[in-house]
């Protein structure tokens, strides 16, 4: 727990120092949302229909940049290796970074909501439920994303490899998050929201458990 808290504090501090990059990643995601709206055209019903899917696609694309960036600082001077040699627990380092990445992605998700409302005219009054779905969905992205970002961080061509490895793995999370968000925007007459959020939570638990088990093998020689 000591190592987890130390790692979380360190990663949040690094993110704060790199906040210009956080803003740039938000700009990239917002631009993606704008381009998606161009693809649909001025049909407001269709825009609203696809809003949830576009929100999560924008978040997924932005997340690959954010996740890769989170390991950039670790690799510049092999700082992560320095911590492992102290020795710091690999599991503590993983959960600290995954939690910091989760906070970053959740913040991005929340920041994309007003963009979605403006571009797609797709809002909801169930803001707490939407926040809950964003938290669960981004948890499902950050846990495997942190693991794969660590795996690809030392490889040439990591910018391509990270999405290639990550996207297939997070398809179930993405589907559940899109469905749950869509139910919030378009209405939920059959009361399906709970089952989709439960599914999201289940994926999250599995990803977080596996990530913690595998991270040591990924970062140690």
């Amino acid at each position, binding site marked *: 727990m*000591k190592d987890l808290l130390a790692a979380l504090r360190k990663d949040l*501090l690094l993110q704060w120092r*790199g906040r210009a990059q956080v803003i740039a990643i938000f700009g990239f995601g917002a631009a993606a949302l704008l381009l998606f709206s161009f693809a649909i055209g001025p049909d407001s019903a269709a825009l609203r229909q696809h809003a949830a899917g576009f929100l999560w696609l924008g978040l997924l694309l932005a997340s690959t940049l954010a996740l890769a960036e989170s390991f950039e*600082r670790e690799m510049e*001077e092999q*700082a992560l290796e*320095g911590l492992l*040699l102290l*020795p710091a627990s690999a599991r503590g380092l993983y959960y600290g970074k995954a939690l910091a990445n989760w906070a970053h992605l959740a913040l991005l998700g929340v920041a994309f909501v007003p963009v979605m409302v403006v571009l797609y005219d797709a809002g909801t009054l169930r803001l707490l439920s939407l926040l809950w779905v964003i938290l669960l969905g981004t948890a499902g992205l950050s846990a495997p994303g942190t693991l794969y970002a660590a795996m690809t961080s030392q490889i040439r061509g990591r910018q391509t490899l990270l999405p290639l490895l990550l996207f297939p793995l997070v398809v179930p999370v993405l589907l559940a998050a899109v469905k749950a968000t869509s139910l919030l925007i378009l209405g939920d007459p059959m009361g399906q929201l709970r089952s989709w959020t439960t599914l999201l939570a289940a994926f999250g638990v599995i990803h977080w458990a596996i990530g913690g088990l595998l991270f040591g093998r990924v970062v140690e020689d």
Partner: protein
Amino acid sequence: MSRMIAVAAAGICRRYGRRWALTDVSFEIPEGALVMLTGRNGSGKSTLLRVLATAIRADRGTVRVLGHDVRVDRDQARRNIALLGHRTHLYEPLTALENLAVRARFLGADPSRAALLPRLEEVGLGDRADDPVQAFSAGMRQRLALASVLQQQARVVLLDEPYGHLDPPGFLFVDDLLRLLRQGGATVLMATHLLNRARNLCDRGLVLEAGRLAYAGPAAQIPEPVLADGAGFAEGA
């Protein structure tokens, strides 16, 4: 009375792809010894230090640090080893003080400014404590990396080119640091090309040639061919 063995390497082999960087390297270093490690570029010095520090694994052979087998009891070995490598292990966007504080939290030490500032003053960076590392020169980074090594208070200290990037006062600082470590009872293995300087400071020497141990014995008796071709020339202050 014979001293306890601090580092014992037996038959270490390590390869990168198809090239063997270390072949059957065996030696022992008694506790409290100050040992120089030398050899030409690419002879395997850094690889050997990284194997001893558990940063990378040996493909064959065993390493024991203060009696702990680094394969079996890696964390216990790591608690006793500090490594200054070619890469500084620092976070570039963080300040000097924040870098030490990050490590202090993992070490369970006091991360407060009052506790860490003396460490920075010790390496001549007291007035740059709040500057980000990315604004530092290579020599200042090296000083900060040395401060983080000292912070560990390890019993076995592995230094890879500790004089690298330093100015003449920095050379003297490293000389003093080595004497200080020795007085504190630490075992030091230092890779360096500054042969004359190291021979005056160290009591034992190891020479690597193409990944094989070519010499192990008193530092003062390191064979002359190693000193040829101007090696050890221009060693600063």
